[in-house]
């Protein structure tokens, strides 16, 4: 096992995914297997190779700095689970768990 339960629990929190006990158990085994598999890239000497993050050689694509049409507030809020007509509503950022 290249990953421990503790590793997977930490990654779950970083990824903002609440995992059940069963998911945590299964994910530890599956992710270990996948991480072992992708680790074969370590066989290659890439010390002289530049990373390629993107297939195109374009960079800094600019447009004219002119206002363009954009979504109305109503459109932007149309799919929101909770809103008050002008803002998205979310639970308290600070405070006790479950106090929202």
């Amino acid at each position, binding site marked *: 096992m290249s990953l421990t*339960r*503790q*590793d*997977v*629990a*930490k*990654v*779950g*929190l*970083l*990824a*903002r*995914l*609440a*995992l*059940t*006990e069963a*998911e*945590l158990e299964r*994910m530890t085994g*599956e*992710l270990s*297997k*996948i*991480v072992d*598999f*992708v*680790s*074969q*890239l*370590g066989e*290659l000497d*890439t010390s002289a*190779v*530049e*990373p*390629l*993050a*993107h*297939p*195109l050689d*374009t960079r800094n694509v600019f447009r004219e700095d002119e206002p363009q049409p954009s*979504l109305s507030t109503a*459109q932007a809020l*149309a*799919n*929101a*689970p*909770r809103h008050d007509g002008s803002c*998205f509503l*979310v*639970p*308290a*950022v*600070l*405070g*006790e*768990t*479950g106090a*929202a």
Partner: protein
Amino acid sequence: MHLSERSATDLVAAVRAGELTATACTTAFLDRIAAVDGRVNAFLAVDRDAALAQAAAIDERIAAGRPVGPLAGLPVAVKDALCTADLPTTCASRMLAGYRPPTDAFVVARLRAADAVIVGKTNIDEFAMGGSNENSAFGDVHNPWDLTRAPGGSSGGSAACVAADMAPVAIGSDTGGSIRQPAGLCGITGFKPTYGRISRRGLVAFASSLDQIGPMARSAADCALVMETIAGHDPGDATSLAVPVPAYTAALDQPLAGLRVGRVPAHFGPGLDPEVAAGVEQALAAFEAAGATIHEVDLPHAAYGIPTYYLIAPCEASSNLARYDGAHYGVRAEPGGGVRAEPGGGVRAELGGGNAALGPFDSPLVEMYCRSRAEGFGPEVKRRIMLGTYALSAGYYDAFYAKALRVRRLIQQDFLRAFETVDVIAGPVSPTPAFKLGEKTGDPLAMYLVDMYTVGTNLAGIGGISFPCGFTAGGLPIGFQLQGPALSEPLLLRAAHQYQQLTDWHLRRPALVP
């Protein structure tokens, strides 16, 4: 021949000539969907009334002698990863069940402007993550050639609906093979153009440096027809190429004589089904007989394609899917709302080394995020988000993500070198014909290997096309793939078209039985 069996090229010409109304054409395909999709499950949404209203409006304009677009009256199905303002866009995820985008994707807007008729949204692997369409939250798609088998994925619904004559053309997207692999397994033609050739605006992002939209149809000629409408620069996608769009249909008739075709010996190694190998070799012989020359080429790092892809794609996905936060759209789990999951399985995670987060649930807001995402995403999407988050996290970034980016360059250089001596590279699209539903679902890694011949195209940002080159003894289509350099679309479409002039594999129809 029944209307629903006619080619897109033929249907468009018939509507233009006044021999067929857009309404009759659209009705034929909607009726076919109603008759057979209960067995295939290719569609997640069909709006019959809206499609017929659109068709009627086109007919009115034709009757009044007013101009219509180049695809007037052509029914088109759209993968449910592309935004449509008048139809739900779910990515086959509970996360987006019922989501209505505020605008059409660039490609959808182009299709409408060309007077194509959008007949519905097709089923996919959730967020386009998968190779069998078994990761849909709304049910498996069944391969029309054998309903007990997978259609491939992630554009499985798009491939199956064309194979079963429910649409003459479907739009797919291809991140690691998601157009070409299902096209191969369903016996149709699927085209993944060069990265950036078609705007990604309005395509729900999976892995942004790999994602590419493309057409799926019965033939390469039909793909070329649709390409002329959907390709082109879009200022709204900074990665779309500002390069003129050639007349793809005009280039189709050039013969194969003189075409230099590369054959990679390693593509015929262990893991390749013998019937698939035989079908592909036979197609290579057909290219040779038609005047093409076959040359052995080497892609030395091809074997590292899958591990490279399964680091880069999950890393980009974990970042892209961070937008599903329960606040702006999609599933929202309220605290105490009956969600059973615990953060980190109830284990208090120890975080440090630059990862500025606390657990479990350092605030009601974080709890809402964690529970909403747990509710909304299915197992494969969670797996990939976890894998990507791990590979990008402090202490692992260089060993995994940065390493994969370096190998990606080696893979791209392999292709650039090969294309110094050949025009296209030919080989299988998948190692096996369509596999049984359920056969690979218990082993994520085995499922990842179905992409072994297709991921290189995306990593290098080049083009690829797949089309049928035969059938197994059991009656399953065998797929053939051509890969070409960046912006070689005219060449790829022409080579596939010329092969389809010599063979009729692409015209065979499934019986829609187990």
